[in-house]
């Protein structure tokens, strides 16, 4: 795997490898952090801190291990520590404002069903984003890792430090809660 070669180079002290790794993971890592903390500025700060942590610990990282899982685990631990310090309640409860800057009033008015397919699709995406933002953190996390990142269940188990069976049950419950939230918020809409 190409990624592993970069990791090996980084362990040997090649700074170019660091640049390539950061660029390669930028979207995935940022997206994961954003889903957890739900604030872009904090996600960016945590992004930087994660890479600083990587630099600190890369020497003791066994290159034959899965770098993805290790990276995301570091990010996760930093994000949870951050939330514990700043907004401990957000670890369980839904956030009052979702990370979308859309006005709630705008949302309601645009519910006049437009016939355009892509407008409908965009609307569905927004609805799902907002519903997801309202879920507890461990549910948001497993949804983003499975669907947005397409991570394997075993990898998710490594990152979240729980057994595979727990990942599956979290996945199931998160989907059920998501669907319930969608049907409750947009009754008679596209989610029934």
């Amino acid at each position, binding site marked *: 795997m190409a990624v592993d070669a970069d990791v090996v180079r980084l362990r040997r002290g090649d700074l170019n490898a660091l*640049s390539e790794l950061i660029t390669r993971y930028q*979207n995935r890592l940022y997206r994961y952090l954003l889903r957890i903390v739900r604030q*872009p500025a904090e996600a960016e700060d945590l992004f930087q801190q994660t890479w600083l942590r990587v630099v600190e610990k890369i020497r003791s990282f066994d290159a034959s291990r899965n770098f993805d899982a290790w990276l995301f685990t570091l990010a996760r631990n930093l994000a949870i520590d951050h939330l514990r310090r700043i907004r401990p309640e957000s670890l369980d409860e839904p956030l009052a404002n979702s990370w979308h800057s859309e006005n709630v009033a705008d949302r309601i008015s645009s519910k006049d069903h437009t016939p355009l397919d892509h407008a409908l699709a965009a609307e569905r995406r927004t609805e799902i984003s907002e519903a997801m933002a309202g879920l507890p953190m461990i549910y948001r996390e497993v949804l983003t890792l*499975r669907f947005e990142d397409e991570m394997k269940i075993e990898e998710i188990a490594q990152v979240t430090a729980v057994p595979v069976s727990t990942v599956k049950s979290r996945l199931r419950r998160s989907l059920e809660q998501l669907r319930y939230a969608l049907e409750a918020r947009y009754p008679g809409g596209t989610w*029934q």
Partner: protein
Amino acid sequence: MNEHDKIRELLALAVANALTSAEEKQVAEHVRSCIACSNELEAWRPIASELRRLPTPQPSSWLVQATLARAEAKFTEQAEHDWNHRLMIIVVAFAWLLTIASWAVFHVVSGRFERLLGPQFSHTWISFAAFTALEWLAGGVAAVMLAIRQRGERRLA
């Protein structure tokens, strides 16, 4: 009824592709004959597909650069730190080797000057200990003086 409930539980995981192949076969078979469960499965699909197609949030354009700058600085700092650490271990080991070697030298040298020191003195452990203690004392005094001087200089800067 029992089977329905079991299958229902698997449907959500089915759209997440998180089922074992045995479970997948089970679901596929059941869905073929049961309309209700088939509809349920179809109700799950849009959720899964929209989740997969959520737009990737974009970070600020300078995030990678900024992170790289900080990470590179940390990296070189860390490399220096590791190197100094290794160096110190080597130098301390060397210092101990020298201490032990100095006993041998003392032994040899004092052997030559037996008449001055008295034979018992030149070979006993006490003399080694005294010699080493004197060396370390001299070294310790010099160390303290240097450290004080250095700290004074740093404070002025």
